[in-house]
Every structure is written in structure tokens, then in C-alpha cells.
């Protein structure tokens, strides 16, 4: 009701109730559902990607499972993409789109570095990514965490396929992000050391890889600081190792099952075929 009043009075809804949540879309959705309109289907993207900023730089990580429906299409998929020496992007979404978008980003930024004579900035990667993705209205299914260090400092950004971007101190994306973000929300704090940040990223990835069936197998990490970038991987967590052999023998000794009744049926051969 408030929404309708606001519209008729030519006033923005957010100005009518400035500090409250606006649930008018929920009312609309309920009305649509009642009319029989099916809600839009969400495509689950099987990945856990995590990134965290700490005192000097950024730590980013991803699992390595690529799924096609219920099947693991690739056990060692490279989801931590090189953009420049000091900028990396973790990608969730459509594998082909991610590969192409990150390659395009890398080429554009490296060309810019040569032409400007300066190290590329993370914010530039962000602008190029979002302007490209917005153009395709979300059809290029790339959900990226772009992180790195440039002459102005360490940065971490979250880019969605439709072009939304956000600057974050820590982030997780992909189907495993629900599990991973809980670890980050609980344990992230300002001014962590590299070891703490690395451990936090790995713990968050473990949560995603353990809880989400579309994430797993192994993980890759990259630690970016002003002086150097170190790529670590693949790291295989304990719970991702091939299951250990079953200790018990499931063979049954003959005579273990008691025979209660026997019935014999005899068949006459009417026609036989020669099988080669």
C-alpha cells in the first residue's frame, strides 16, 4: 500500500520509509505466484572461490572441481586465473565464459601496461570486466573475484555476470560460498598476517568443498603482496583424498545361507540359433 501511495504521490519508495526494508517486491512475487507464473530457475554453479585481504595484500583461493550436471567434468580445473603479475581473478560460473573473459582481461591489461608504462590497477580490471559483462546483460556467465596489489594498495572486488560490482574486505562466490562465507564472517579480522589469511582462505575453502557436492577435489591458492606473487597448488585436503580401502571382506562363505526350498523347471529346445 505504501508503495502505491508513494507512486501516486510521485515520491520514491525509499524516501517514504527511509530506514525500513522495502518488501514491495515480495508482495509482487506472491501475486505472480498466485497467478501461476513460475519463478525463474537458478543455474547452480559448482564452485567454491574465496578471497581475503590482509595487512599487506590479498590471498585468493578456489577449489578445482568442474561439474556438468551430476558428473565431475574436470577434477583439476584451474579457477585462479592470471590477469597480470599482481592481479588474479577467481571465477565461478560457466567455465568457457570465465576462461575467455579472464583471457580478454589479461590481454587488455598487459597491453595497457605496455602502452602506459605503468603497472595496471585492480580497479581498471574491474571497470573493463563490468563494462564488458553489463553489455551482455548477464548472458556471459562470469562471477569473478578480482584481487591484487597495485601501486595504490591491495584491493578485492566482487563482479557478477550482470555487471554489479562491490569492493570487499573478504568474499566468497559459487555454490560453495554459503558454507565458505560462514567461516569468513566468523574469523576474518582487520590486520591479519599472511599465515592467518592463508589459513582462513583454506578453512573457508574446506567448508565449501566439504559441504557442497559441486566443489571439491583439490584447491589452489595465490598470495599477492607488493613485492611478489606466490601461487600455491594444487593442495589436496585430507578429506578429499581417495577413500581408503574397505578393511572388511564382503565375501560370504559357502553354506552361510540356508536353502529352504528347491524347484527345478525343465525347458524343451524348440529352435536354436547358431551364434558365432
Amino acid at each position, binding site marked *: 500500500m505504501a508503495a502505491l501511495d508513494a507512486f501516486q504521490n510521485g515520491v520514491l519508495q525509499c524516501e517514504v520509509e527511509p530506514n525500513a526494508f522495502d518488501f514491495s517486491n515480495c508482495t509482487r512475487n506472491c501475486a505472480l505466484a498466485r497467478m501461476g507464473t513460475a519463478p525463474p530457475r537458478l543455474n547452480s554453479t559448482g564452485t567454491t572461490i574465496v578471497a581475503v585481504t590482509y595487512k599487506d595484500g590479498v590471498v585468493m583461493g578456489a577449489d578445482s572441481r568442474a561439474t556438468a550436471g551430476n558428473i565431475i567434468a574436470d577434477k583439476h580445473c584451474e579457477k585462479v586465473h592470471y590477469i597480470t603479475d599482481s592481479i588474479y581473478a577467481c571465477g565461478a560460473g560457466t567455465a568457457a565464459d570465465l576462461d575467455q573473459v579472464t583471457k580478454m582481461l589479461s590481454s587488455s591489461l598487459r597491453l595497457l601496461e*605496455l602502452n602506459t608504462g605503468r603497472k595496471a590497477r585492480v580497479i581498471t580490471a574491474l571497470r573493463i570486466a563490468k563494462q564488458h559483462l553489463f553489455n551482455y546483460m548477464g548472458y556471459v556467465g562470469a562471477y569473478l573475484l578480482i584481487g591484487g596489489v597495485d601501486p595504490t594498495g591491495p584491493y578485492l572486488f566482487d563482479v557478477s555476470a550482470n555487471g554489479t560490482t562491490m569492493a570487499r574486505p573478504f568474499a566468497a562466490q559459487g555454490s560453495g560460498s554459503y558454507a565458505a562465507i560462514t567461516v569468513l564472517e566468523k574469523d576474518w579480522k582487520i590486520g591479519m598476517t599472511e599465515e592467518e589469511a592463508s589459513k582462513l582462505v583454506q578453512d573457508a575453502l574446506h567448508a565449501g568443498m566439504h559441504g557442497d557436492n559441486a566443489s571439491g577435489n583439490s584447491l589452489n591458492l595465490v598470495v599477492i603482496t607488493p613485492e611478489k606473487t606466490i601461487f600455491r597448488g594444487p593442495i589436496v585436503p585430507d578429506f578429499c583424498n581417495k577413500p581408503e580401502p574397505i578393511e572388511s571382506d564382503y565375501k560370504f562363505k559357502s553354506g552361510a545361507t540356508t536353502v529352504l526350498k528347491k524347484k527345478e523347471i525343465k525347458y524343451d529346445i524348440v529352435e536354436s540359433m547358431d551364434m558365432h
Partner: protein
Amino acid sequence: MGDHYGFSLTTFSPSGKLMQIEYALNAVKNGQPSVGLKASDGVVLATENPSSPLYEEQAKIEKISKHIGCVYSGMGPDARLLVKRARKIAITYEDMYGEEISTTQLVTRLAAVMQEYTQSGGVRPFGVSLLIAGWDAEPGKPLLFQCDPSGAYFAWKATALGKNDTNAKTFLEKRFSETLELDDGVHTSLLTLRECFDVGMTEDNVEVAVCNSSGFHRLTKQQVKDHLGAL
């Protein structure tokens, strides 16, 4: 470009020469001297980059891709455009084929661009000759090429462009050897460049770059100073 001129400004003379290209080559001949030398394990590029207490430093030798760089003699702004074009060619090749462009491929494509400007409407040829130095990872060898305003390209073991280039080339013919290593190559290049210098050579008015297996790098002022000291 060339909105009102759909015809080429580069036309044949009765003797069969394209005078615009000849004049472009004159622009190169009057440009600042540059030297290129292929050593056994890398390539050296050197050039005069005049400085004055009023100037802010501006590099002349440019990097095109990780393992390819170039220097020019002639009109700086023309070279700037070619370098930008070369960088785009290199990165587009990498995008398409998934590997770094080889020096020969870059040179042929860039030379084709230069030739285009001798046969298109409303444009003039580039007033530069480029010396392109590169290192091909497979099979691991250094390469040195010259690209002319006409679009012609030549592979060199050692050469010089710009003012006093004939003196420099004579000097190189005597002093060049195929067994030279990179350090000696820098030494010989600087000696050659000195032949073309009208003023005294210091680390402030000479620029040197090397291209080897670890990539294309410009030498720092200090490194140039050390080499000059050893001359």
C-alpha cells in the same frame, strides 16, 4: 583517415621510383643514430637520446612484448604509432594462438602495415625505420630485423640507422664477429654508436637495451655508465 582523398599520395616517378618513400628514407637518414647487433646469446639495441638540463627523461627504446623490443631512427611520433600497432598485433596473436608471437611473425605483420601506408588513400609513408630485436623461445635464438618505410624488411647480424650510418656500418663490418657474447655485443654497439656521435657520449644521452632468453630489458643508467667506463 583521408576523408577527401580516395587516391594514393604515393605515386610513381617516370624512373620507376616512389619519391615519397625516397623522401621518407631521407627522414630516416637525418634522424638520430641507432645501432642493432645480434650476439650469440642475445640482441643489443642502442641509440642516441639527446638530453638537456631542461628535459624530462623520455625513453626512446620501446618494449613490444615480453621478448621483443624496438628502436627507431626518424620521426618519433610515427614510431610511436607503429609501436602501439605492434603491441596490439602481438597481444592479438597471443589471444588467438595461446603463445607469444615469434619475432619474424611480428616483423612481417608490421611491415605489411608500413606497406599499406604507401598504397592507401590520403596517407603518407611512415618517416621511420625500425630496428626490431627479439628472442624466439623455440629454438632459443636471437633475431634482429630492420623495417623500412617502404614495407621492406631485412634480417641483420648487425646494422646502424640514421646519421652517419655508413661510417657505423663500415665500423661494424670490421669489428663484428658471430661469436660475440651479449656483454661484448653491448661494448661493440657503444663503440659503433660513438662513431656516429657529434658530441661526447654519456649515460644521459645514450640508451641501450638487450633482448635475451629472460626477455627484453632496457639497461639502467648505472649499467650504461659502467659499460661506457669500460670503453
